[in-house]
């Protein structure tokens, strides 16, 4: 049987944002524009893939009682590495995403996949799962970002197609909740139809 479904599952059936409803904080906070959403998604995917791989490798050797502390340490290590890499090579993105980069440590998606998938599966499968869930998360964040940017600033990926301002509320906090709520409705409709 093909292993391809590990990737597609993360995208639709187990979509972390619309179905599992995990990792809501960065989803709401960083999607003020399409680019920010994309960057946040990729940053999370980086940590997710690496932590999935390492945890699937070490899981057989870790005693049950210290499982969670070990996973948190591994995840925090990769987040710190990511912080350092971003500061060095993409300082602008690091500055916009700010607090939400270190907060990947407590993103329930990462710990959730470590605990729910990686410690029961092999390295290859865990890596594919990381890619699938990571892509699903990135796609969801980018979609929310696009909607908020189009409505709120009248532009898409920084390219302005309406002169002047959009509906400012969508760039600010309330817009995040509203857009996510309505996109979830659409996703439910789509799943119900299938």
């Amino acid at each position, binding site marked *: 049987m093909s292993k391809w479904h590990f990737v597609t599952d993360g995208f639709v059936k187990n979509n972390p944002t619309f179905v599992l409803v995990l990792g809501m904080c960065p989803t709401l906070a960083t999607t003020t524009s399409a680019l920010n959403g994309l960057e946040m998604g990729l940053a999370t995917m980086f940590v997710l893939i690496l932590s999935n791989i390492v945890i699937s490798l070490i899981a057989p050797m870790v005693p049950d009682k210290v499982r969670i502390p070990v996973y948190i340490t591994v995840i925090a290590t990769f987040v710190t590495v990511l912080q350092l890499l971003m500061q060095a090579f993409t300082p602008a993105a690091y500055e916009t995403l700010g607090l939400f980069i270190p*907060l990947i440590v407590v993103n329930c998606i990462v710990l959730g996949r470590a605990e729910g998938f990686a410690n029961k599966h092999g390295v290859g499968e865990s890596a594919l799962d990381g890619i699938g869930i990571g892509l699903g998360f990135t796609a969801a964040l980018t979609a929310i970002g696009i909607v908020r940017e189009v409505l709120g600033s009248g532009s898409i990926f920084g390219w302005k197609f309406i002169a002047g301002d959009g509906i400012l509320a969508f760039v600010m906090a309330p817009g995040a909740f509203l857009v996510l709520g309505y996109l*979830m*409705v*659409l996703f439910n409709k789509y799943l*119900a139809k299938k």
Partner: protein
Amino acid sequence: MAYFLIFVSAIFVNNILLAQFLGICPFLGVSNKLSTATGMSGAVCFVITLATVVTYLLNKYLLVPFGLEFLQTISFILVIAALVQMVEIVLKKISPSLYQALGIFLPLITTNCAVLGVAITVVTKEFALGGAPHMLNLGEATVYAIATSLGYGLAMCLFAGLREHLAQSDVPKAFKGLPIALITVGIMAMAFLGFSGIV
């Protein structure tokens, strides 16, 4: 005066849930009933305040003197995880009644990003309180932590109250559950926007 400004700003203007988006997962998870919402708020309030003070001191007296600020993320999360465990054990021993009320929420709190978020915010962000922006001192950081968690409790309890009614109203099928909850929070956040600019 500075303390008062921090207080108002952290509860209303920069509400941690509605304006900063921290701790959303437990917010959506346990706000179905008012009683669980108050329990969770109490536990969060306790842990945020304690964790902020401990990590502030850790940062000031251990990480900064040795130039190890890049270890903030990893050391803070480990300290918070250990602290939550310790609170659980101590609470169980000295106050069984309080443990009964808050105990089941404690394990959830380690991965509540509000705790780590506040701890990192107070040591990295400059605050503008009328005068020149500056870093918070220990007293201000403590007040900020308390006020922030009160803001968390306020938003959580208000929302739980709304949600209890929401559960009984007739909404279209695709809106049931989280979508309508998120839209309600959106409207609440809009109301809280009205506070911006008062500090």
